[in-house]
């Protein structure tokens, strides 16, 4: 028996970036409706449900709120990459017959609650926090330490990192919903204040409200639905941390999850028409590109220069403007999959990558230099 194909049949990004009167639940519900309506489905068709970022048993509260009684549940909590991993989990569940139609939702009011996504401190209770939290690690700091080491080891420059932020902003200018759309220059990035050296304010993602939803089902069933299906070709998940105290901090989870994803999807790097790379910080993109194998370790700085990662370049990425300029309510993985799906459906107007057939999404969750997850997903046009 051949392996059943799974498809994304609904992908909806909530247009809001600021929603002080809404709860995360309402944003998630509105996004869910948007994604289901694309496919011509209703809540009654949902028999599998996944969400993340709403507390330890938030998946139950979300079921309560949406009045769902699904046969399959998932509340993966590996940080902002969770939704990318959940697409893989959902595909496996559908393939195994545990359910037929999975809804994945995300909602957050990080901005209007003034939640310091990247610059709050850690706790110091359970291990390993007791050996970390006392020293004041921030999310930015954990990524900044990777950038500092990368610069030392390979000569990567702040100008090269800034190029990533500049490119994302150019893409955001093509996305009417993006939070920041005015062009910036490398000089602007370098002149912005240092948050955690060597990362400047404009090396860091924005903080917004927002949410989104995805709907998955079998490719067979997708034929009867309203939307254009996008195929789940394969993926992988991995974790990296400082282990027992011996680690190359520039070696990240993407190396492992990406390798598995390429193998399972049966595609090569040359087949990839666009990438959606979690850009919590500029260094996240550079490290991810190297570890996914789009260039060698240490070559990321040169790789992102010269327009290669911009619309019209050889490997356009984050066409929506990314977390650096469009939206980042704390867990951006959801938007990677939504934009990739829309690109493969050729629905992206001025920011559309021509003839996009294969898209790669990579989410990074957690504290890159301390402990983090990576989830890679390859999607293909039907």
């Amino acid at each position, binding site marked *: 028996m051949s392996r059943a194909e799974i498809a994304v049949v609904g992908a909806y990004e909530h247009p809001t970036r600021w929603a002080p009167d809404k709860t995360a639940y309402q944003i998630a519900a509105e996004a869910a409706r948007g994604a289901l309506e694309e496919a011509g489905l209703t809540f009654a068709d949902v028999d599998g449900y996944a969400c993340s970022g709403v507390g330890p048993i938030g998946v139950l509260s979300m079921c309560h709120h949406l009045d769902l009684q699904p046969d399959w549940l998932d509340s993966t909590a590996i940080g902002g990459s969770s939704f990318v991993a959940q697409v893989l989990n959902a595909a496996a569940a559908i393939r195994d017959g545990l359910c037929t139609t999975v809804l994945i939702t995300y909602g957050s009011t990080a901005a209007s609650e003034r939640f310091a996504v990247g610059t709050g401190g850690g706790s110091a209770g359970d291990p390993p926090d007791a050996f970390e*939290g006392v020293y004041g690690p921030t999310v930015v700091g954990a990524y900044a330490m990777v950038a500092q080491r990368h610069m030392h080891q390979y000569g990567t420059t702040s100008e090269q990192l800034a190029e990533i932020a500049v490119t994302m902003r150019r893409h955001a200018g093509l996305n009417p919903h993006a939070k920041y759309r005015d062009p910036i220059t490398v000089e602007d990035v370098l002149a912005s204040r240092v948050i955690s*050296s060597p990362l400047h304010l404009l090396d860091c993602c924005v903080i917004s409200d927002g949410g989104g939803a995805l709907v998955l089902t079998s490719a067979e069933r997708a034929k009867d639905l309203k939307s254009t299906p996008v195929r789940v070709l394969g993926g992988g998940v991995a974790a990296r941390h400082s282990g027992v105290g011996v680690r190359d901090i520039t070696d990240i989870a993407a190396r492992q999850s990406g390798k598995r994803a390429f193998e399972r999807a049966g595609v090569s790097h040359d087949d990839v028409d666009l990438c959606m790379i979690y850009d919590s910080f500029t260094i996240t993109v550079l490290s991810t590109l190297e570890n996914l194998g789009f260039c060698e370790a240490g070559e990321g700085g040169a790789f992102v220069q010269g327009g290669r990662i911009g619309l019209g370049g050889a490997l356009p990425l984050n066409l929506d403007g990314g977390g650096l300029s469009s939206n980042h309510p704390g867990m951006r993985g959801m938007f990677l999959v939504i934009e990739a799906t829309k690109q493969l459906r050729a629905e992206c107007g001025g920011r559309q990558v021509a003839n996009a057939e294969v898209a790669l999404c990579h989410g990074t969750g957690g504290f890159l230099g301390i402990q983090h997850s990576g989830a890679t997903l390859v999607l293909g046009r039907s």
Partner: protein
Amino acid sequence: MADRRPGKPVPRVDEESKGFWEACRRHELRIQRCRSCSQLRFYPRAICPQCMSSDVEWVLCSGRGEVYTFTATHQNHSPGFRESLPYVLAYVELEEGVQMLTNIVDCPADDVKIGMPVEVTFEDIGDDIAIPRFRPRAS
């Protein structure tokens, strides 16, 4: 001098970490070595992830190492840290070969460099806990 700033987290001492924190209280830096497979490990765990043995010894470290990587933190809204900005968060690689997350102190943030020689210094916070941090040393 005792410094228990409001809000700054204090490590919880438990069965796995007790040996480390008791040594710190004496201003000694000790890390675990598995008596079965000889692997050094930091932070402390009851069970060796490599061979699953619980038989462990606490090796006294020289306290010397060098900065593996660092960041000068200019923004942290959390109580206890917002008063200390800018502070340096770093991984220090000990002479024994393991990396520790820590702070670099007694040094202006702009002067910290990767590869810089450092040595441990302890900050007593109350009677029972001392936090190991690192400061520059002559190479």
